[in-house]
């Protein structure tokens, strides 16, 4: 590729023979002819196929992508700054809105970090319910991914099927927390509420019928010539590259690296569940599709086991300094009222120190790093964003591919801009 003339207004200002200011070009090259000239195309930030407000500036040589520069920040909402001005329980609703495709998993991730920081052990029932929440979130996130990716590649029907399954999980989420999307499920030390009576039956119903939909989608897509042609061999990353780019989640596993936070740094008792880690081989878009599809089956398996072992008992830890006492007790017992007052007005104070907990979000490793100085508001709340880091490999993956492949590759990264930009 020839070096173009870099004409910068910023270039060393010079003065020509008549004393007029002039630009001095920095480097000179012959003006390229039409055949060699590259075209610059701007995709986004408002575009259906960017999965959010992502802007890609693509340098094209004909149809081939020579270079792709992503521009982010179009959804930057100042979450981490806002977290420094909120109590730990007040941050839970904010976590819903970072990765809004799998809100309950974010809630769980933050609560685990806060509990690690404060040294709180949650109850067995809460542990199993949080596993159920995480796996439900994995399913809905992968369903969005499946639906939007197939639309990008031209198949509209799986979108409707996938979203219909999501609606069933949304019904469950609404039964449990009252909200379809912004669930705010967890609290430090427990959950906002226990599951209602018909929740287990309805979830068992879902588990029974969900593999059928996955089978339908599989039948429509996997051996489809168009689908395979557009995804196989596209955007491949070797294992070494994936590790060097700090990828995580299905992106990393599709490249052949068998790293799953649930198996390697287990939390919430995942080491006691029987499930497989899905690892791909080629690291291309097709492998990522297969990995995510199979992960849905594995999530179904985990949900079945979790429901079978759901113990009775309280969902909240029995510590009145951390958990709000019930209203009846707060209204009748002086000590309970004081605890209630202190928690609402001052918040729960965390000890001095820091903690990092990473969970296996559907997108990758979602880490929450909390630093505390002894007050009720964190000094630093850092979200380790899997989508942000996965997206940084996009320029590397897109090089040399066609423009239409770029859409497929972008879809396969499974980004959610709320988490990328925070």
């Amino acid at each position, binding site marked *: 590729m020839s070096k173009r003339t870099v004409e910068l207004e910023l270039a060393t200002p010079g003065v020509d023979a008549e004393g007029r200011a002039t630009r001095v070009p920095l480097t000179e090259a012959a003006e390229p002819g039409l055949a060699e000239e590259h075209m610059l195309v701007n995709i986004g*930030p408002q575009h259906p196929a960017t999965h959010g407000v992502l802007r890609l500036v693509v340098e094209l040589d004909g149809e081939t992508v020579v270079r792709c520069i992503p521009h982010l920040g179009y959804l930057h*909402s*100042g979450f981490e700054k806002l977290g420094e*001005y909120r109590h730990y329980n007040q941050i839970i609703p904010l976590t819903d809105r970072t990765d809004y495709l799998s809100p309950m998993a974010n809630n769980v991730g933050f609560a685990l970090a806060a509990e690690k920081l404060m040294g709180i052990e949650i109850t067995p029932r809460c542990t199993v319910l949080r596993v159920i929440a995480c796996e439900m979130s994995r399913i809905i996130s992968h369903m969005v991914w499946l639906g939007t990716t197939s639309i990008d590649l031209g198949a509209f029907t799986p979108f409707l099927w996938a*979203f219909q399954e999501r609606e069933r999980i949304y019904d469950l989420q609404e039964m449990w927390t009252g909200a379809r999307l912004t669930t705010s499920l967890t609290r430090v030390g427990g959950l906002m509420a226990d599951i209602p009576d018909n929740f287990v039956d309805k979830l068992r119903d879902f588990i029974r019928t969900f593999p059928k939909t996955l089978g339908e989608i599989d039948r429509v897509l996997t051996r489809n010539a168009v689908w395979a042609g557009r995804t196989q061999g596209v955007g491949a990353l070797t294992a070494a590259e994936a590790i060097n780019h700090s990828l995580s989640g299905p992106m990393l596993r599709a490249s052949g690296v068998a790293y799953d936070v649930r198996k390697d740094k287990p939390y919430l008792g995942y080491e006691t569940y029987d499930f497989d880690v899905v690892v791909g081989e080629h690291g291309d878009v097709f492998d990522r599709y297969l990995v995510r599809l199979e992960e849905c089956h594995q999530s179904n398996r985990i949900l079945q086991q979790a429901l079978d072992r759901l113990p009775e008992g309280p969902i909240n830890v029995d510590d009145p300094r951390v958990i709000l006492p019930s209203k009846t007790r707060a209204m009748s017992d002086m000590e309970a009222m004081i605890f209630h007052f202190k928690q609402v007005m001052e918040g729960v104070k965390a000890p001095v120190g820091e903690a990092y907990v990473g969970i296996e979000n559907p997108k990758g490793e979602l880490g929450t790093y909390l630093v505390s100085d002894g007050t009720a508001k964190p000094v630093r709340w850092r979200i380790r964003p899997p989508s942000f880091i996965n997206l940084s490999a996009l320029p590397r993956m897109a090089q040399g591919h066609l423009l239409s492949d770029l859409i497929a590759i972008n879809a396969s990264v499974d980004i959610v801009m*709320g988490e990328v930009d925070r």
Partner: protein
Amino acid sequence: MKHVATTKAVSGQSPNYLVAKFQDLVNWAVNSSRANSLWPMPFGTACCAIEFMATAASRFDFARFGMERQAFSPRQADVLICAGRLPFKLAPVIRRIYDQMPQPKWVISMGACASTGGVFDNYAMVQGIDTIVPVDVYVPGCPPRPEGLLYGILLLHKKIKGESLFDAVKRRDEQPLDDKGLRLAPETIDEISEPFGNSVHQFRSS
């Protein structure tokens, strides 16, 4: 529903006249067509965009209300639905998209963040898209349920059907930015962006 037509009976013959005011007939025809076939430009940014997609999917399906074709190009859209929060970096983008839409155009601000900034009362977030583009319908919620969005769309239908092409005040004026690059006076923007409720007390770091 306004009384559009009257019939007039002529003695000895069947009533075969329809009399109506020309203005009412034209308004009814044009505004119904516009309202019943609003093609949305989904400016979806965050969580509300997911509820927007759910409203488009099989269960709630706003194609029943005329929004059959989502126009991703603003040049072919009628209503800009801003679904989600709008950071300052995205502000020039939405303004440009709004300017690119041809008249008649309407704006639905979906969700709390698009209407007022929502939970995000901080340095990065526009405190309501009405500081940047004129808004016709605000749909509250975080996110609004699909039924909520549908209600907002129906309200917009009602608003459109209540418009008139013959208004003395031209309702379809372009509202460009002024020479300072603002849509409203700076004092107005500051006033409508002021924190209220709990936000007033939650700006201390510890």
